[in-house]
């Protein structure tokens, strides 16, 4: 099992989510993060004085998948998140030891992504 952790631009998220859903990987989490990198900070001017904000808002996607699905996820993120300018973000892939579904107590790779027939439709 692997966890893909990607730091991306906000606007890249929706196409990534849609494609992963279509390719059978619906389960993921996002969080709003602020971080620094090679992209310059934002200078805010406030009535004559200025304030440099060195961290920029990014979106973090976390997605735990079966080893075999890693390439699909990475490739999807790369395709939609790359604009070619500084600030596109990074992807990290880390190993995951265990996965447990809280509702049933099931363990292992079966609990990672939704399966045929088990989807709960969005209302």
């Amino acid at each position, binding site marked *: 099992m692997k966890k893909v952790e990607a730091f991306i631009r906000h606007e890249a998220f929706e196409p990534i989510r849609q494609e992963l859903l279509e390719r059978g990987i619906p389960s993921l989490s996002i969080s709003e993060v602020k971080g620094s990198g090679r992209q310059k900070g*934002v*200078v*805010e*001017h*406030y009535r004559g004085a200025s*304030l440099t*904000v*060195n*961290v920029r*808002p990014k979106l973090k996607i976390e997605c735990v998948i079966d080893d075999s699905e890693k390439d699909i996820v990475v490739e999807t993120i790369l395709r939609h998140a790359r604009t070619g300018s500084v600030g596109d973000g990074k992807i990290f892939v880390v190993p995951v030891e265990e996965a447990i579904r809280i509702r049933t107590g099931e363990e292992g790779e079966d609990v990672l992504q939704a399966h045929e027939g088990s989807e709960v439709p969005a209302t």
Partner: protein
Amino acid sequence: MTKRLSLAALMALATSLALPAIASAQDITEVVEAKALELDMVWVAVATALVFLMQAGFLFLEIGFSRQKNAGAGVAKILINLGIVTIAWWAIGYGISGTGNDFFGTDGFFFSFGQVIGSGADAFEVAGADAMLMLFGLAFCAVSLAIVWGTTLERIKFATYVVYAVVFGAVIYPLVAHAVWGGGLLSVDGPLSKPVMDFAGSSVVHLTGAVGGLAALLLLGPRIGKYGSDGKPRAIPGHSMPIVGLGVMILWIGWFGFNGGSTFETSGAFFGEVMLNTQLAAAAGVIGALGVVYMKTKTLDVGMAGNGAIAGLVGITAPSGFVEYWAAPIIGLIAGAVVVYGVLAIEKYLDDPVGALSAHGLAGIWGTLAVGLFASPRLIVEGASPGFWYGLTDGDVAIGGTLGQLGVQAVAVVATFVVVFAISYATFAIIKATIGLRVSEEEELSGLDISTHGMYGYPEAFIPQEEYPVGRFEPSVAGTPVATETAASDTRPLVKS
């Protein structure tokens, strides 16, 4: 000291009381007439302040319907528009809107004290009361301009405001105001068999603003993300319904000056009738909009309730001085229904973030036509016919009568639309071809606050506390008890015993 002052005050009072007593009857009449005019102007002054308050209403309404990243831009927009339109109105606009030929006014440019405006018997020398009325006119022009930008939020270039505000304040609004209120083509002096009745500007102010907004929107296009790949509209929720509500209520209150002040006088306290009509229609507008939106979508939409109030107010703007109380709730109720159907229909094709096209455009058209339906014989202006409703009861449905009046009202709608749309579309097209109408995609995504103005409307929503000069939060502020580890575990044990 106090005694002396009060003595002086008493003497002054005695003199003022004694003077009229020793004056001739003719002098008394003159004094009373002058005082009556001054009293009228006091009311217009109050109304003017209320109408300028509506700028705050538009500010809150539009900012509430915008996202956080565009909140500060709304403030800058209202202020620069008010700044530019004021100068444009003083230099040119007031002159165009006033006395002149059939098409535009020819006197009163660079409005100044003692200036002679008009010719022949109608000529007058500018004095204090004229300044008051000129300022009242400016407040209307500024309201009309504020309506335009409702359709363009969150993506328009700041320079557009600057250029269009000059054209709007100097030419577009004054032309329409001149046609209906300044002795132009649609007034009693015009070629139409009857004058257009638009008491406070359902078409002159509100339809004009909405049509300007339509012209801008057609050239500007929707916000990024408004329409999905399937072409269906998606909601882009504004960031604060409480702020929207505040805006609606400020507009509602300001409208008492807008309609009530359009009496220009205090005689018979007629403004009271106008204001009651205003209230009845606004109330019915809320009920109509909320009722229809519930029937259509099974939700009690907060924003739509606000749109309903505005639509009721826009709808009653033209009829407020011409209809009886029973007609006002009918006009408001229909306006409230119209705004819901309008928003739902327009949303499919055009991205109008605040619903200005429906609330000011469609309701403005309805209000103008409603005069032709409900105008009371008791209240109509000279040369006009009562509303079609009265024609049905007394049999006067001729073209020369009530039906003709309804037709004349329709002519006002079409004429306003054509003139305002043509000039506005040309202006925006020129802006688009030269300096550009719309910000870049990157600027739109990061928000107008930081990209255009270099500052956030809500800095703490975007800048982490750690980046502030003070650094991180200091929890141990003097006088504030700080929870220690022991205290925390005392009050909230992790394991139940």
